[in-house]
């Protein structure tokens, strides 16, 4: 089965560098993923506002993937969970299924229920797999302590997503460890980052992020790595605000899984869109990207 990139709107808007680094990373890892410009938003924002619109939006993406004969690959946990859930609902609800197909028919599309969405983590674990990754990444991030941020929709609802164990997930950690980094155990691993409340209740959103930072620091993590751009943006934004508070020396830096793999592959921080992310010097020491001076 071939693979096609499913772009995330939020990544496109706020981290276009990182989005374009996807291509370089999968090419270097030898994973064939096509690009396609015709997808729409996964529908995540509409779930609580216009349920039918949410199902239709995901359904259209699934139909497009089905037509191309390719699995959707996303780097966003929210896109991932949303499309999976919509697919699940479509398979159970005949009337919604008919509704979606009725709309899709107008543009010559149809969904028959065979669409598949995968997170990049899943794709990489499958091919090149842990041994292949270890060979290609050369253990270059040796000794860096990483707190893995799966993202809610990677794990829950587990009967719909079934990516990993909802209580003690490990797949993301295994991928991280293939870079030579060490995945630490931290109390807030399964918790929400607070991103869905950005712009709705910023105080609560900030508090949720703060809990995460505290826990990562307690676990002595050098870095938080997210599987979702929402978490990444939420951490970045909260870090900026929290670092203005007195005694804010505890704020753990964060990167996305794409950026971490990029660092492990020696891509520059400009390419990855992490310039000025204040990554720790000890992380940088192990990367190949010496040709680009990195701020410690």
């Amino acid at each position: 089965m071939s693979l096609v990139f499913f772009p995330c709107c939020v990544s496109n808007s706020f981290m276009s560098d990182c989005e374009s680094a996807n291509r370089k990373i999968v090419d270097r890892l030898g994973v064939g993923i096509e690009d396609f410009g015709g997808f729409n938003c996964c529908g995540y924002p509409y779930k609580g506002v216009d349920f039918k619109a949410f199902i239709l939006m995901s359904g259209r993406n699934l139909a497009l993937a089905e037509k191309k004969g390719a699995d959707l690959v996303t780097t966003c946990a929210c896109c991932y969970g949303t499309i999976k859930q919509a697919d699940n609902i479509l398979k159970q609800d005949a009337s919604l299924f008919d509704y979606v197909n009725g709309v899709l028919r107008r543009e010559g599309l149809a969904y028959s229920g065979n669409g598949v969405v995968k997170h990049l983590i899943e794709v990489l674990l499958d091919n090149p797999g842990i041994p292949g990754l270890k060979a290609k990444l050369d253990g270059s991030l040796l000794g860096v302590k990483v707190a893995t941020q799966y993202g809610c929709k990677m794990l829950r609802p587990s009967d719909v997503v079934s990516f990993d164990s909802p209580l003690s997930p490990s797949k993301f950690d295994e991928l991280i460890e293939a870079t030579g980094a060490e995945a630490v155990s931290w109390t807030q691993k399964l918790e929400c980052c607070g991103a869905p409340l950005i712009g709705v209740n910023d105080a609560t959103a900030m508090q949720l992020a703060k809990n995460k930072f505290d826990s990562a620091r307690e676990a002595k993590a050098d870095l938080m790595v997210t599987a979702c751009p929402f978490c990444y943006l939420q951490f970045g934004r909260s870090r900026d605000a929290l670092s203005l508070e007195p005694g804010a020396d505890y704020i753990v830096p964060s990167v996305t899984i794409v950026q971490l793999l990029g660092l492990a592959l020696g891509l520059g921080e400009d390419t990855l869109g992490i310039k000025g992310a204040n990554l720790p010097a000890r992380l940088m020491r192990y990367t190949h990207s010496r040709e680009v001076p990195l701020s410690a």
Partner: protein
Amino acid sequence: MSKATMVYIALLIGLAGTAFKVSTWFRYSLGSKKYAVADRVAAAVEGIWQTLLSRQFFTILKSFFFDVILQAKLKRVAPLRWAAHLLIFGGFTLLLLMHALGVYINPLFFSNYYATLNPFLFLRNFFGALVALGLLIQIYNRFIHRDPVNPTTSAMDVYTILIFVVIIVSGIFLESVKITSISVFRDMTEEYAAGEEEASLKALEAYWVKNYGVVSPELSGPFSPEMLAAGKTTSDMNCAQCHSPAQWAFMDYGAAKLISPVAPLFDGAPARAWLYWIHFLACLFGLAYLPFSKVFHLITAPICLMANSVMSKVRSDPVNLATKQIIELDSCTHCGACTRNCSMGFFHSVLPTQMILPSERIGALKMLASGKPLSIKDSLVIQEGYNQCTNCTQCTLVCPVGINLQDLWFSARETLAERDVPNLLVLSPVSIHRGLRRDEIEIPSYAKPVNDARKAIADEFGSFHWPGAAYTPQEEKMLDTAGVHLRQSAGAACFSCMTCTNSCPVVKSHQSPGAALDLLPHQMMQAVKLRLWDLIFGSRMLFECVGCYQCQEYCPMKVPVTDLVFALRNVAVSRTARNISQKALETL
């Protein structure tokens, strides 16, 4: 009134219009931040001055060459449109220089300028043909070619094509009438071949009928070779110095052949005068009306492209970014590249409002920017369209004139939020976009939309005590399709063990969650059981849930708590939205 006076009047109107348009760049604004006109002018002058003196000047030069002259972006997005644009722009510019202003410009470069001599005779037709070909492609693009989603065709789109068609066609037609005209021929012979004998004049006329497309009432072929030879001798002696063969004017000559059967009808000064005035006045009208037509992009698009090559949110003065947005509105050519590439374009078949389509929003945006009053209904219609935009940036990436549409939508949403029509979508994760760009919003304006939306929902359900009226069959169906069988599952199975509440990160983030959230998750389940809708829909918990699914994951009774919250939100939003639009209709 002399023709020169008319040209100056048209030019003056055009310049006055341009001055008016330029003034709107500093007077109109979008977004919640407002700046004084004087500050905006000062900031623009300072910004331009500083940029021109810095290394960025070279970036602008590069952008002028690649983006403006070569239209690199348009080539990437729509090669056919690019070809048409280049043909029209190139052809028309050359016609302007070598034909309209030919008397002044050509002698500067050529010693032997005569409009009826080659290469000028041929070139005029060649440039005209370039424009005509470009126009044909544009007509195909606009009226025949269909994409899955298409922009509408406005009166302005038709005008723009029409004004060029009128200018080109009237020009060709005028020339073809002149070619066929026997009276023009006789006037010329009287002037330049007066000394010739009757017989040689006749031979000349035969020669011109045969070779130059003149239509004579007395003479028609076939002519004898001797006569033609005699005609050629006379022509060479008297005419050829100033007349290249008419065939070189291939379009005019072709048109002359087409009209030759009816040519006598057009022979005579009045017909030629009519055609001339149509041609001349169409050009002047185009010039005078230019600032108000979309041909104005001739001025604004280069500004927009070059400004965007050096301006960015990080580098530039926000005052100048605000001004740039208004210039961008004037740069839009309604080409529809954004709409054809809009990732939500397909949704137009579900919600048939034009406001979904990015190219169609620009008009409404101009209205918002000018600060004109909008009816509640108009505001709702615009809002409805904007609500389907997911900020995927696709439109910005493809805009051939480099408009940062993404930023325009952002500003427009803020402008709309200032009007008193609550937008319930701000309670969804769409607000993440807004939250991440909080710095660009005035502090008092930031909280307003969320507060308005919450209040609208609380008001809607505040007096809602009779449970029987809670759901319409449609809404019940919506809840069912969410996979939530409200009464059977949630109501029956929950025994208030509080696992949901204890696992909720939002609850944990508050010191006194009960007071902050009104209902805790397990209380909400109980409220559903008791059908206390006013409690649920008025509670803060409903829209503070992050949707992390921990409650649902850990519930020992498999109550789909999170899905239920989403379903309840749907009902709250759809009911309140319906009420808002009902009120809007009542105020009409």
